[in-house]
């Protein structure tokens, strides 16, 4: 008996020891979990590192220029490194881009989400995604050799003929300038606005639409009075994300805007944007403060984009429930 029970006991002990060995996660699991957590933290570390490294390298400029960065003009030769003119150029070009891309993008999204049959919507949506995939430097070369001459010969004169009484459309038309920058940006922003708005529209519950249609509304009334109000914050988020893309675009803009630090009303005049300054001047920059000032432009761009993206993501996340998963 005692022998038997001893065997049983030892067998049970062996089994429970094996069980214990698998319950206590083996070394492989610990390493694996460590790698998973390390990778997750790495993503956060990158964002922090972006800020800290840019801050560290732009510190010489911050110390030298101080708040003058927001009031001075940009004159590297004379030791002035103010970004005022760049902020102006960025605001004007982004505004043109959003004024065009906003309505077009939302219209396209409404068409894709609410009107088009699925057979048509899927390929068209793919075309729009391809529009987003075209590299920005390709938009740049296209803008330089196609859009700029078209503005100089057709669009510019036509605008001047019709709206010439506005200061926005006065003066000589070079082709390169804020209008060219804004137009090329609008092409690049449309896919962002359209794709995200479409996601947001598709997250609107069908009850909204059915209720409105049951009241006897037309399709258009259904879209404007039942779908758009419900999706409002998401659409605003899509526009803000589009704004983020416009603010940060360097290559396409640097090739068509003329790169001249000035604040003028006419959209036909060359200007400069925050993102295009480092792109254009980095390789020629000499002197510690100059390079540091260019890095500071990058830092400012990073901070502005961070704020824009955070607000946009919060709006879109709440509208499409992406963050809750």
């Amino acid at each position: 008996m005692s022998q038997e029970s001893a065997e049983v006991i030892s067998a049970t002990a062996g089994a429970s020891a094996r069980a214990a060995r698998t319950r206590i996660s083996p070394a492989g699991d610990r390493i694996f979990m460590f790698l998973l957590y390390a990778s997750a933290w790495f993503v956060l570390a990158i964002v922090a590192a972006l800020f800290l490294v840019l801050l560290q390298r732009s510190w010489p400029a911050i110390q030298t220029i101080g708040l003058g960065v927001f009031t001075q003009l940009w004159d590297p030769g004379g030791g002035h490194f103010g970004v005022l003119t760049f902020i102006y150029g960025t605001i004007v070009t982004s505004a043109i881009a959003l004024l065009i891309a906003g309505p077009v993008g939302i219209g396209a999204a409404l068409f894709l989400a609410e009107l088009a049959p699925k057979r048509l919507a899927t390929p068209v949506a793919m075309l729009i995604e391809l529009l987003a995939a075209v590299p920005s430097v390709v938009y740049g070369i296209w803008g330089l050799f196609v859009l700029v001459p078209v503005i100089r010969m057709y669009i510019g004169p036509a605008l001047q003929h019709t709206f010439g009484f506005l200061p926005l459309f006065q003066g000589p038309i070079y082709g390169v300038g804020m209008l060219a920058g804004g137009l090329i940006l609008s092409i690049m922003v449309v896919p962002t606005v359209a794709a995200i708005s479409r996601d947001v529209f598709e997250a609107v519950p069908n009850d909204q639409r059915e209720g409105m249609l049951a009241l006897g509304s037309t399709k258009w009334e259904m879209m404007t009075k039942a779908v758009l109000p419900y999706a409002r914050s998401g659409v605003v988020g899509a526009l803000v994300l589009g704004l983020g893309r416009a603010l940060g675009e360097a290559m396409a803009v640097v090739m068509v805007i003329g790169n001249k630090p000035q604040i003028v009303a006419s959209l036909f005049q060359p200007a400069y944007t925050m993102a295009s300054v480092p792109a254009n001047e980095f390789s020629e920059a000499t002197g510690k403060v100059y390079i540091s000032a260019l890095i500071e432009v990058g830092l400012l761009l990073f901070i502005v984009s961070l704020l824009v993206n955070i607000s946009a993501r919060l709006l879109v996340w709440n509208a499409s429930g992406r963050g809750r998963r």
Partner: protein
Amino acid sequence: MDFLKSPGFRKFWNAFMIIIAALCAIVCGVVLAVVVTFVISKGYKALNLDFFTKLPLPVGMTGGGVANAIVGSLEIVLMASVISVPVGVLAGIYLALFGRGHLAANVRFFSDVLTGMPSIAIGVFAYSLVVIPTGHFSAHSAAVALAVIMLPIVVRTTEEAVRLVPGVIREGALALGIPAWKATLLVTVPVARAGIVTGALLAVARVAGESAPLLFTAFGSQYWSKGLSSPTAALPLVIFQYAISPYPDWQQLAWGCALVLVALVFALNLTARLAFSGRVSAN
């Protein structure tokens, strides 16, 4: 006012605005068609054997190619993928399988925020982090910049792909006593492989065309690169530098590079999207 509420006007307005919305979608397609048509019609003339096999020639001599830029781009994108794909996939697996709580919410949020960061700012970051300390432009520094751009795309697409794998498969493996890491890597991940590859391809497509972060990292070069820690040519850089040059021969080469780049990026995108029918977005 009564006229605006009359059924006739409402029907007319409905039809009118539907046409406007359709036009918006059509405009997007037309713009794409116009851009692509120009790139093809101007670029194809530059494409010949020399384009893919020769070095650029000095101004004034016709011919020459961009072989060094093609190789340079491949090197840089490959290095960036080697850095960011493993980390991104692991972080994506974490989010999909263990992603609850504050850490996961923050990782998701900041990956999305990082996706929207201007590539020029990331280029300035790589310049500050690698080029200043090492003292020279290099393919390494360019790879660091592109890796940062790729990372959030890989993270989020991997998460979406792994999340689509039914949990019961993994639980079945765990119930058989397989350690969690094996269950994840040998059972869950292979099922999600198509989605993960899609994400990586989309990330590659995105960075293959990036030029802003290369301007002051890879810097560009007229010659074969002397190694990974020396200035390196890349296709997007050639487009920029040759397009703004005043020489027609160089501009022609720039259009050729643009055509190659667009073809490459579209091929990657279409492969990725057709190979994996789930909805994956690089936005």
